C-alpha cells in the first residue's frame, strides 16, 4: 500500500496550480487586450463585409480557411493520445491525456467560429441548416465536428469526475461557487467499485468511438477540397494526407503545452524527461508518415507535370510560393525529424523550440494547401486587376485570423486554472499498482 503522506504530496503538488496569481492575471490581461483588438477588426468586417479582406472572386478561400484546417488538424491529437495510446496500453501517456483533451476540445470548439468568420455575416451560418444538402461535404463536416466536440468534452470530463471530488475536498480556499461547481461535477463520487467500473466502461466506449469520429472530421475536411477537380486538391490521398498532417501539428502542440505547464506549475516530477523523450519519438514517427504522404502528393503529379498541374507545381517549387513551400517542408518537417533522432534534442528545452517550428510550419502548410490552388483555376483569369489574381491578406484579416488562436489560448489557460491538468486519481492508482 501507498502511505498517506505520499498521496498527500501528489495531491497537493497537482492541485497547486489551481489558484490565481499575478502571472496568470498578467497573461490573461495580455490575452484579453489582444483579443479585444482582434474583435475590433471583426467589427470592421461586420460593417464593411468581406471586402476588408484580401479575398475575392478568384481566391475566395484564404487565411480563414487555412486557419480552420489548422484548427481541426490540431484538435485530432486528443484522439491519438487518449484513445490510440490509451487503448493500446501505453501507460506513459496517461498523464498527458488530459492536456491532449484540453487542446482537442479548445481547438475543435473554436474551429466552428473560424468558419463563421469566413462567411462574412455570421447569420449566414443558419443557411447551412436551412438549405444545406446532405450531399455536401460541408454538411458532413458540420455534423462530425459537432460530434467530435461533444465526445472530446466527455472524454475530458469522465476521468475528471474523481478529481472533481478531490478538488471539492481539498481546495477550501477557492470561492464558494467554484467549490459548489466541483461538487456538482463530481456526481456524488465516492470511489466505490461500481462507480469505478462505470467510469472505466464509459471512457473505454468513448475512446473507441472517438477514433472513427476523429478520422472522419479530418477526412471530411480534406474532402471539402478533394471533392472538387481543382489542381492541387484533386487527389485520392487527401484524407490520409490530412490526418497524418494533423498528428504532426497536434503532437507539437502537446509538446509545447507540456513544456509550459512543467515549467510554470513545477510539475517536473510528473511530466518527466521520459515523457519528452517518448513524445519526441512520437513526433518523429508521425512526421515520417506525413513526409511519406508529402512525397506521394508532390512526386506523383510532379513526375507527370500535366498541363494545369504544372502551372501549380512550378509555382510551388520555384515560383511565387516557393519560399514558403520549401521553408514549410524543410524547417517544419525534414529538419525536425533529423534533429529529433538525437537523444540530446529530445530534452525539454530543444524540443520546445523544435515543436514551435513544427507548429508554425503546420500553419503555413495549410496556407500552401489552400491559397495557391485558388490562384490557379482551369479557366484563365482575364481582364481583371492584379489584386484579383494574387491573394494578399490584409491587416484586418490577419487580426481576425489571430483572434481564434487567442481564444484557444484563453480557453486552455482558464481550464488549467480550474482543473488539475495531470489526473490525480489516476496518478495515485498507477503508483499503487507499481508498489504492489
Amino acid at each position, binding site marked *: 500500500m501507498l502511505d498517506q503522506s505520499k498521496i498527500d504530496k501528489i495531491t497537493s503538488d497537482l492541485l497547486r496550480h489551481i489558484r490565481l496569481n499575478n502571472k496568470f492575471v498578467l497573461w490573461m490581461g495580455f490575452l484579453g487586450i489582444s483579443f479585444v483588438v482582434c474583435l475590433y477588426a471583426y467589427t470592421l468586417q461586420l460593417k464593411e463585409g468581406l471586402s476588408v479582406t484580401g479575398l475575392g472572386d478568384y481566391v475566395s478561400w484564404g487565411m480563414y480557411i487555412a486557419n480552420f484546417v489548422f484548427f481541426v488538424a490540431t484538435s485530432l491529437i486528443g484522439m491519438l493520445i487518449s484513445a490510440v495510446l490509451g487503448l493500446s496500453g501505453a501507460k506513459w501517456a496517461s498523464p498527458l491525456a488530459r492536456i491532449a483533451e484540453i487542446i482537442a476540445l479548445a481547438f475543435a470548439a473554436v474551429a466552428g467560429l473560424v468558419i463563421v468568420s469566413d462567411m462574412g455575416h455570421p447569420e449566414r451560418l443558419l443557411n447551412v441548416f436551412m438549405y444545406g444538402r446532405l*450531399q455536401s461535404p460541408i454538411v458532413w463536416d458540420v*455534423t462530425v465536428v459537432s460530434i467530435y466536440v461533444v465526445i472530446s468534452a*466527455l472524454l475530458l470530463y469522465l476521468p475528471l469526475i474523481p478529481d472533481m471530488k478531490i478538488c471539492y475536498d481539498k481546495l477550501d480556499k477557492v470561492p464558494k461557487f467554484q467549490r459548489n461547481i466541483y461538487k456538482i461535477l463530481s456526481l456524488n463520487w465516492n470511489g466505490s467499485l461500481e*462507480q469505478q467500473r462505470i*467510469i472505466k*466502461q*464509459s471512457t473505454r466506449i468513448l475512446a473507441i468511438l472517438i477514433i472513427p469520429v476523429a478520422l472522419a472530421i479530418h477526412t471530411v475536411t480534406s474532402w471539402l477540397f478533394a471533392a472538387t477537380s481543382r489542381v492541387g486538391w484533386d487527389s485520392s490521398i487527401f484524407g490520409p494526407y490530412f490526418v497524418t498532417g494533423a498528428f504532426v501539428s497536434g503532437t507539437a502542440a502537446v509538446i509545447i503545452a507540456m513544456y509550459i505547464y512543467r515549467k510554470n506549475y513545477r510539475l517536473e516530477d510528473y511530466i518527466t524527461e521520459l515523457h519528452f523523450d517518448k513524445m519526441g519519438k512520437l513526433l518523429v514517427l508521425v512526421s515520417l508518415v506525413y513526409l511519406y504522404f508529402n512525397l506521394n502528393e508532390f512526386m506523383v503529379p510532379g513526375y507527370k507535370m500535366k498541363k494545369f498541374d504544372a502551372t501549380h507545381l512550378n509555382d510551388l517549387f520555384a515560383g511565387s510560393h516557393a519560399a514558403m513551400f520549401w521553408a514549410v517542408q524543410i524547417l517544419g518537417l525534414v529538419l525536425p525529424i533529423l534533429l529529433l533522432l538525437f537523444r540530446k534534442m529530445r530534452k525539454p528545452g530543444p524540443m520546445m523550440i523544435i515543436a514551435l517550428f513544427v507548429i508554425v510550419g503546420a500553419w503555413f502548410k495549410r496556407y500552401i494547401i489552400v491559397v495557391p490552388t485558388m490562384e490557379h483555376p482551369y479557366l484563365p483569369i482575364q*481582364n481583371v*486587376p492584379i489584386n484579383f489574381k494574387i491573394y494578399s491578406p490584409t491587416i484586418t484579416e490577419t487580426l481576425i485570423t489571430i483572434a481564434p488562436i487567442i481564444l484557444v489560448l484563453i480557453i486552455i489557460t482558464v481550464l488549467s486554472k480550474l482543473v488539475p491538468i495531470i489526473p490525480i486519481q489516476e496518478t495515485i492508482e498507477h503508483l499503487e499498482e507499481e508498489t504492489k
Partner: protein
Amino acid sequence: MFKKYNYLKFSISFLLIALFFLNTNAQKQRWDVPADKKAKNSYIKFDNASSKDGEAIYTKNCLSCHGNPGKGNSMKTLKPIPPDLYSSLTQELTDGELFYIISVGRLVMPAFKDILSEEDRWKLISYVRSGNKKYVQVLSKTDPNKSKLVKIKLDFDSLTNKIKVIANAAEKTGIIPLKDAEVSLFAKRYFGKLQIEKTIRTNSEGIVIFNFPKDLPGDKAGLVDLSVKINDEVYGEIEFQNKLKVGIPTDKPSLTEKRAIWNVLKKAPIWLIITYTSLVFLVGFVLLFIVKNLMKLRKLGNN
C-alpha cells in the same frame, strides 16, 4: 562648342521622337467607325424620360467599369482605363459612333449588340448625352413604328437543309421587299443564342438563305427555337421568333430528374440518406448510453 551643338541636336531629335510616339499613341486610342455607321442617328428622342431609362440600364451594365459619369471614378485598374463618359473626348463622338462602340466593343469594352436591344442602346446614349449642355440632337428620320409593318417568313428546305428568310414590308402602296438589310439567324440553346452562319444582307427581293447545320439537337419532336434579327436602314430593328422542325429529335431526361449527388436535398441518393442518418443515430445512441451511465453513477453515490 562642337560638343554643345551635338548635345542640342540630340535633345531636339529625342524630343521629336518622343512627340511622335506620344502622338501615335494618342491616335491609337480613338475609334475607327465606318462612315455610314458614324452618321447614324437615334429615332428615340433624348429627353428626361429616355435618359432616366438609360440611367437604369447604365447602372446595371456599365457602372462597374465606367463609374458614375462626371465623377471620374471608373475602374482605374483596367487597361485601358474606361473613359468617363461625360468627358469632352467622349462627347466629341457622334451618336452613331457611340452606338457603334457600345454595339461592337473593343477588347476590354464588351460588345452589347446581342445583350441590349437597339432601343436600350439609344436610351443609354440619351443618358450619356444628358450631361452635355451643348449637345443638340439630330433625330433619325426612321419611324420606329415602321418596323411594325415588316412581315418575316421562315422556310426550311429539308432536302438541302437551307433556311430561307423572306422580309417584306406591308406599305399602303403595296408589299415592298427589304433590300440590303442585315439579317442574323439564331438558334436558342441552353445558355443563350447560337448564331447560325454569319450576318448576311438581303438581296433585292428581301431574301437571304442560311445553310443550317445537319446535326443540331432539337427537342423531342426535333423543333428548334429560331430567332431572326433584321437591321434595316428604313425600318430599323426587327426581331422575329419561330419554332421549326430543323433539329435532330432528342429526348434526354434532365440531369436533375433522378436522385443524384448534385441534386437538391429532396432528391438525395437513398444510400447517402441511410448512411448519414444511421451513423448519426448510432453516435446518438452511444452518447445517450453514456449519459445514462453518468446518471447511474450519480445515484450510486447517493446511497
